[in-house]
Every structure is written in structure tokens, then in C-alpha cells.
């Protein structure tokens, strides 16, 4: 009796067609992929936390970095744009879950419409992120890096940021960019900034109301503004003009800040992009009636899991980069 039961049990367990934990093979594997991907993102965000805690006194303040909003030039509008991006992603999550819901009722047209809306939402999000990157890379004010590697920004006497372009002097001498075609050997250099260090120093000297702001955060949770005398002293140590951001240095402050921003939002943006591609494939499958023939829209559920996960990650990226 016992043996028979075991044999039957074995046949049942290993014969295929089982659903451990009550989830189909595909869904279970999607869940485990999500677990591993969630841990990957946690690793990135924890590494960001590590660097931030390490440089806690000099880390850039998010509300001073992400201040752009489309068609509003020169207006400091922190948060609004990312809030918009967050809404787009949440809304595309809603249309996705509505597609899954319609799939349960085998309503092909409804699934197609909701999936289409999800794709549009994803594309808007990726586009918005590209715009955010563009602003971040281009920069707004410019800054000076000292010989010691710390960053100096410029403010007027009310503490408002001043762009280098607004005060720097213009010297007649032209410094020619070294490119491969002009080099004697395989030599080239990074893109030259618009103004040289000497031009910024001369401009600073002639504008007596300008002050320098350092990276250090005060007890009031603002950046330190030096006196005019200290500012002049500090500027003598200038070594580089920094405009915008790249992987080596950025005008916002800590060098690691831009690296993490590019890496984490880039990795997330890549997930969104992949999600859009997968959604498009599934969308065409829906139109072709693949799932109609199967009498099951489970594929929408699996893709939906991935899509919601991408939204979930954004919720954390949003908090870590823009809020905390």
C-alpha cells in the first residue's frame, strides 16, 4: 500500500504538469527572476547609500540639481518633473493590470487597448528620462574644481546661484582643442570648457558682489557660503572649469553622485526599455490571436509582473535620488 502510494506520488511529482506553490512554471520563474533583479537593484542603491554616508557632509542636495521643467526656463522647479515621471509609470502600471484583468475575461480587444496604453506610457517615461539626462549632462551654472578635487560654485550676495557664463571675462587668446587629427601621435584631450580658469578668476575679481559656495553642508542643511576674502583665497587654488556632468566629474558636487545617477537611472531606464520591447512583442501576439487560441492570457500576467517590478524599482529610485 505504502509503496504504491510513493510510486504514485513520484509519478505525480516528477511527471510534469505540476504547479509548485500554486503558480505555473512561467510565473514562478518570473518571480524568481524578479527576486534576483530586486537584489541587484538593492545592491546598487545600497552602494549609493554607502557613498553618500561616506561623504555625508559634502553630498549634493537633490533639490538644487534636478530643477528643470519643460518650457519653464530659468524657473527652479524641483520635484515636479520626476513627480510627473512617477505618475506616468504608475499609470502605465494601472493600464497593465487592467490588461491582465481583461485577459482573465478573455476580452482580446480590451487587452490590446490596455497593452497599447502601457507601451505608450513606457515610451513617455523613457523619453522623459532622456530629457532629464540631457539637462543633467548639460548643466546650468558651471563650477570650478580645485587642485584638491573639491568643487566651488558661485553665488551672488543673496545666495542665488550665478552661472560662470554670466561673469567670466573673455580673453583674446584661443586655446585650440587637441584632437586625434591634430595630434602627433594618438593624442587627444577631453572637450575644453567654454571658459578657462584664468577667465573665471578675472571675472570673479571684477564682480565684487560674487561669493563662493563650497560643497560642505551646514547645520541648516544648506551649502556653506564663504566670505568675499575667503572666496578670493579659495579661487586661487582653482585648477579646472567644470561644465555639466560626465562620469569623471560634474558641476553638482561629489564625483560619485553623477556616476551613481547615470548608472542606476540608466540601468532602470534600460529595464523600462526592455519592458517596452517585450510589451510590443506581446501586443502583436495579442493582435494575432495567439493567446485567444490558447484560451489563456497568462503571458500578459507574466509580462505584467515584470512591468510592475520596473515600476516598483522606480518608486525606490525616486525616493533615494530625489526625496531623501
Amino acid at each position, binding site marked *: 500500500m505504502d509503496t504504491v502510494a510513493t510510486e504514485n506520488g513520484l509519478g505525480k511529482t516528477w511527471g510534469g504538469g505540476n504547479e509548485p*506553490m*500554486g*503558480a505555473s512554471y512561467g510565473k514562478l520563474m518570473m*518571480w*524568481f527572476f*524578479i*527576486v534576483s533583479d*530586486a*537584489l541587484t537593484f*538593492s*545592491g546598487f542603491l*545600497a552602494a549609493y*547609500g*554607502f*557613498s553618500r*554616508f*561616506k*561623504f*555625508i*557632509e559634502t553630498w549634493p542636495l537633490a*533639490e538644487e540639481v534636478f530643477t528643470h521643467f519643460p518650457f519653464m526656463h530659468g524657473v527652479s522647479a*524641483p*520635484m*515636479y518633473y520626476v*513627480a510627473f515621471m*512617477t*505618475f506616468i509609470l*504608475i*499609470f502605465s*502600471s*494601472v493600464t*497593465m*493590470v*487592467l490588461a*491582465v*484583468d481583461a485577459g*482573465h*475575461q478573455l476580452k482580446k480587444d480590451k487587452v490590446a487597448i490596455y497593452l497599447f496604453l502601457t507601451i505608450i506610457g513606457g515610451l513617455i517615461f523613457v523619453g522623459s528620462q532622456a530629457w532629464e539626462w540631457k539637462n543633467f549632462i548639460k548643466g546650468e551654472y558651471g563650477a570650478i574644481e*580645485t*587642485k*584638491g*578635487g*573639491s568643487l566651488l560654485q558661485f553665488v551672488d550676495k543673496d545666495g542665488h546661484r550665478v552661472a560662470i557664463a554670466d561673469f567670466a571675462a573673455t580673453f583674446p587668446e584661443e586655446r585650440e582643442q587637441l584632437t586625434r587629427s591634430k595630434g602627433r601621435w594618438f593624442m587627444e584631450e577631453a572637450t575644453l570648457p567654454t571658459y578657462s580658469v584664468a577667465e573665471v578668476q578675472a571675472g570673479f575679481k571684477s564682480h565684487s558682489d560674487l561669493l563662493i559656495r563650497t*560643497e*560642505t553642508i551646514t547645520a541648516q*542643511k544648506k551649502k556653506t557660503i564663504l566670505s568675499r576674502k575667503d572666496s578670493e583665497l579659495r579661487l586661487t*587654488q582653482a585648477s579646472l572649469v567644470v561644465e555639466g556632468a560626465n562620469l569623471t566629474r560634474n558641476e553638482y558636487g561629489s564625483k560619485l553622485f553623477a556616476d551613481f545617477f547615470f548608472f542606476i537611472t540608466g540601468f532602470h531606464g534600460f529595464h523600462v526599455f526592455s519592458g517596452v520591447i517585450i510589451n510590443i512583442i506581446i501586443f502583436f501576439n495579442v493582435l494575432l490571436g495567439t493567446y485567444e487560441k490558447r484560451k489563456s492570457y497568462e503571458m500578459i*500576467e507574466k509580462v*505584467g509582473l515584470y512591468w*510592475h*517590478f520596473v*515600476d*516598483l524599482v522606480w*518608486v*525606490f529610485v*525616486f*525616493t533615494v535620488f*530625489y*526625496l*531623501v
Partner: protein
Amino acid sequence: MSHEHVSNTKRIWTVFGILSVITIVEVFFGILKPEVLHFTNFLGMNLLNWLFIILTLVKAYYIVWAFMHMEGEKSTLRNSVVLPVIFLVLYLLFILLTEANYVFEVFKDSTIKWNF
């Protein structure tokens, strides 16, 4: 299985409402930064950051439970997905942030000047 085929559009829109309200509250506090919250520390972190983190976790809960339909899964699946992630993330954060704080103090108290 049959209960899953019931349309729950109403629940979806409710959750959307909750997520939207939470996001609006987050943005609101992120812009205003009320001093009472921003300058009051609790367990080494200011109340504003606590608020943001708690609201984020609430959002995460609704996304996973309602949108990813975790509430409808078996408890074995629920536990084997959620618990390892929570444990490992807390562990990782504890280790990395403690270490980072230590490195910060080493830099701060050392005789070597690094930020000049």
C-alpha cells in the same frame, strides 16, 4: 483558480488612487521640507526622511500586493519571494551604511586633509 477570474477593476482604481495620493504627499513634503520634520532626528535620521521611507514602503506594498497580485498567491510563494529580499536588503543596508559611517569618521578625524 475561479475566484481570480472575477474582474476587480474597482480594486485597481482604488490602489491607483492610494499610490497617487502618496506620491502627491511625498512631492508636497519634498518641496516644502517643513522644519519641524527636517530638523528633528529620530534614531539617527530626521523625521522627514523617515516619512519618505515609510511612504515608499507603503507604495511598494500596494504595488506588490495589488498590482503583482501577491495577495492572491499561496503563502509559500509569498514568503519565499518576499522574506529573502527583505532580509538580504536589511542586512546589506546595515553592513554598508555602518561601514560608510565608519569611513566618514575616519576621514573626518584623520590628520589627512582630503577636501580642500
